[in-house]
């Protein structure tokens, strides 16, 4: 439960003092006080990876990626596509340069995502935006709105990859961000899948499960139950916020239309009231301005928020997928262990028979099977004792193999546990920072809108006050 407590205490916001202290890493001081206070422990990431808690993610530097400047390539041909500038800044030691600037197209992002997903099965590889086939059919995929939305989605995707210290080390990512020969890298990647990279991926290629996946985990790990519940609650919360926020957004959109109509109506009133036409026209303009402020807010604040929220929802779904995979690994281990224990029981039973204690049989299926086998052997006239010894020898070999296998599977499972905990911490950090970004942007957008609206209303009031009243 050591790892558990470590995991639980990973809160990036809980140690505001961290920023002050250049010596402190991102690991909360309270979870690893010993390492956190030793200066320079993280200069070499290889050693750091070895001597630190595997369940706690560490960032050894930064990698900031911007996807900008979409440009139409091969315009006018049927092969026209959009390329994006991918600009990165980093101080990570394994990047050849601190500043990188390449152009990539959507397919390249998809390629990166596919291969990261294959190579880093134990990582929460952020989702790639869908291809939006409808836009391909209607030809809308070059519309500014669509391109901008995709740019934002791609930006989010690469930044999430960059925020994951494990994925950061991927050579594929490195060439994606840096290589001028990206197409060569793509071919290499496809032709020669790289060896498991770094200590984190040695089990990523572990073959699939021995048993059907409907089995349930026998010994549930509370850490993961809690994690799953956390994700459930988060998804539920996002779901209801999404639903209600979308409704309020639609309403704002309608209100924008209403104020537009009201502006027209007030202008119409101005035509009738020739004495105050000018003032009413000004007032109508203010209403019109207000209407477009609302519209602008919907387009520039509410819509991006919702789109980010949806993106975060799919990211969360990937994170949930990793938890399922972890459960699978635990099942692998539990099933292998059970197989081993069955073999051991059988061997013990045989040994007991040889030792003259035939009554001491382990119950259950193996007992019945053993009995049948005895009867078959007897009918064939085989020598019971010799056959038994032979089988015990075989069993011993099998048990030995199985013990090795169980050890391996257990290692995998445990490593996967650690990896999951670490990935969850990484996901939590991403989630927090994205929530911060989303909420911050919404607040900024709203404040800006209200500010501008106040200015509009402020401006019209003295204008209206100048209307001459003679009652």
């Amino acid at each position, binding site marked *: 439960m050591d790892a558990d407590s470590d995991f639980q205490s990973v809160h990036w916001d809980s140690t505001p003092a961290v920023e002050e202290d250049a010596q402190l890493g991102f690991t909360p001081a309270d979870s690893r006080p010993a390492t956190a206070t030793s200066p320079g422990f993280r200069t070499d990431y290889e050693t750091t990876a070895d001597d630190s808690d595997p369940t706690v993610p560490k960032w050894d530097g930064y990698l900031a990626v911007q996807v900008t400047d979409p440009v139409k390539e091969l315009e006018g041909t049927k092969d026209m596509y959009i390329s994006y500038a991918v600009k990165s800044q980093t101080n990570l030691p394994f990047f050849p340069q601190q500043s990188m600037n390449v152009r990539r197209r959507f397919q390249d992002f998809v390629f990166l995502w596919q291969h990261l997903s294959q190579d880093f099965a134990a990582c929460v590889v952020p989702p790639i935006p869908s291809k939006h086939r409808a836009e391909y059919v209607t030809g809308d995929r070059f519309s500014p709105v669509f391109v901008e939305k995709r740019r934002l989605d791609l930006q989010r995707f690469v930044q999430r990859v*960059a925020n994951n210290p494990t994925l950061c080390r991927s050579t594929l990512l490195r060439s994606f961000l840096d290589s001028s020969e990206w197409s060569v890298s793509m071919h290499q990647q496809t032709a020669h899948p790289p060896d498991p990279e770094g200590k984190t991926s040695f089990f990523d290629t572990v073959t699939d499960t021995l048993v059907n996946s409907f089995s349930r985990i026998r010994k549930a790990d509370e850490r993961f139950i809690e994690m799953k519940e956390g994700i459930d609650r988060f998804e539920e919360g996002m779901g209801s916020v999404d639903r*209600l926020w979308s409704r309020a957004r639609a309403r704002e959109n309608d*209100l924008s239309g209403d104020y537009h109509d009201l502006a027209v109506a007030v202008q119409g009133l101005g035509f009738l009231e020739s004495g105050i036409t000018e003032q009413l026209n000004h007032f109508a303009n203010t209403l019109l301005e207000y209407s477009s402020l609302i519209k602008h807010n919907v387009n520039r604040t509410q819509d991006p928020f919702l789109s980010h929220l949806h993106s975060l929802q799919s990211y969360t779904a990937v994170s949930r997928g990793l938890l399922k995979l972890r459960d699978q690994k635990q099942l692998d281990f539990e099933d292998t262990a059970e197989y081993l224990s069955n073999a051991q029981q059988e061997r013990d039973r045989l040994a007991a028979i040889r030792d003259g204690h035939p009554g001491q049989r382990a119950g259950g299926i193996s007992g019945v099977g053993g009995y049948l086998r005895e009867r078959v052997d007897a009918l064939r006239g085989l020598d019971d004792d010799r056959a038994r010894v032979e089988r015990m020898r075989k069993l011993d070999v099998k048990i030995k193999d199985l013990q090795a296998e169980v050890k391996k599977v257990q290692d995998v499972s445990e490593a996967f546990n650690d990896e999951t905990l670490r990935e969850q911490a990484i996901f939590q950090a991403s989630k927090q920072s994205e929530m*911060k970004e989303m909420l911050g942007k919404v607040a900024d957008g709203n404040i800006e809108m*209200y500010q501008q609206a106040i200015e509009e209303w402020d401006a019209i009031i003295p204008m209206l006050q100048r209307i001459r009243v003679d009652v």
Partner: protein
Amino acid sequence: MDGDEDINPFRTEDDVSPPIDESANSDSNAAGEEEEPETATQSAKTSLTISPMPTTNKPFPSPYKAAFPAAPKNEPCCTRDMWLHSGEDVEILIVDALKTSEGSSSSYIVYVIRTGNVEARRRYSEFESLRNSLVKLYPTLIIPPIPVKQSIGEYAVKQNKAKEDAAMIARRKRMLQVFLNRVAKHPILSNEHVFHRFLDRDVSWSEVLHSPPLSQLPKNSLKAPAHDPADSSYAAVYAAIPTPSAAQPLRRPDQRFLDSEAFTNKFQNHLSGTMEKITRRSMKRWSDYSHDNSELGAALNGFSLTETGALANAMEKTGQAVDATYMSTARLLQELEQTWYEPLQEYTQFASIIKKLLTYRHQKHLQYELTQELLDNKRESLEELERNESEAKRLDSALTGSLHVDTATAARRASSDAEAEARESSQEPEAEEEGESPFPSGSVTRATPPPAARKRAGGFGLLNTLSHSIQGIMDVDPEAARRNSISKTREQISQLEDALQASAQDLRYASQTIQADLDRFQRQKVADLRDMCLSLARTHREWCKQNMEAWQEAKTAVDQMEPHPNRPGSPVATRPPAPAA
């Protein structure tokens, strides 16, 4: 009720000198000067070229002020009057709406009206009856509207009946208060003692209804002088004036009022068809939006509970900002209803009140024209009769002078006599046929004549036919018959002349007063539109301010969250990067 008659500015003026003071006319603008010939005698004018009155850019001409020297009266008629005209900016308040069943089998709502230190209690139906009384007493004034009987506030979220009722009562309370204050601020209506008594705690309203002047009001307001319908001394004169239908077109319409009517129609359509509709729609939307925010705020607050630390705090504060939007939107909605939607409705009502007023003036104008035609006809026939008479006299004198009876002449005389009678008889039955309009203008539609007129006309007709047949049978002296009809026609003419004079005065008075009150109304409307726009702007500004503050707090909480560890400014990044492998 003598007191109240004294204070009526119309009455005192007009009682002294029935012809409307010409000073009012000469004081007024160019329009007023042109107006004189109209009323001077007959057909003269009506082609006034006044710009549609409401929309003048020049400082509002005030024929109005001249027309009614707006009464700093010598003596207040009662304490309410004293309070209303104390010179201070007084406001009548409806301080409460109480449920009571006093004097009734079922319960009803009374509105507590506070004027200064006096509180009177009146129910809705009494407001209604006050308004109707004022409409009858002042047929030429724009009597402010009261809220319509059935609330059309369908935008309100109807949750249950009781709540709806409460909203309806609150709404009535507000609008009735507006009504009372509009009356109190009106330069003429505010002097009306009936109104004062309405505000008086100790006066029973039914008593007011059954005492003069209200008890003296004629059934048909067109059969009474415009300046004082309660004055019955003109009843005889008005008996001779026809009561036309409003649908009948004028021969010489007054362009000013045609313009007024066209404008009022446009105004009403724009208000009720466009502005009210849009306002209702956006109020519904605001109401939904408020509801959305209430739910979203709750969802965000619940969501924040599943998180911890700064994120939870940021989410909670965002939820609070959304909650604040919900609260402020509810207030915005309330303000919108009270300072924008309700005045819009009120002005839609004003528009139909003005249309009624214009109809009244139209009818008064018709009365004048019809009376004029009637008189012309009578004069014509009188002329005819007198021509016959003088012819007869000439023949008589010739006959008596020549001493011998010329049979031929006698025959000629007889024939001309018969002719005259034929003319006469053909004319009278026509009158009978056509009811109240004895002049030949069959092309125009006639309203059913009031009973009195028909009886009279019928009476004459019958009498004439009778006398004719008697003459025919008995061969009475035709000369006597002719003289008889001459004197009758003369009598009618003199009656009609009186009626025409009254009608001319009426028309002039109605035109002037309506025009003046329309001018006053226009000024009031500009002031109200200004206030409406201003309060709409202020309400929105306030709404924005409140929301902005709430979001600023949320932003502060969001800013307190730690940034992602992967960023250039992070502690590790300040260290020199390790040499590339």
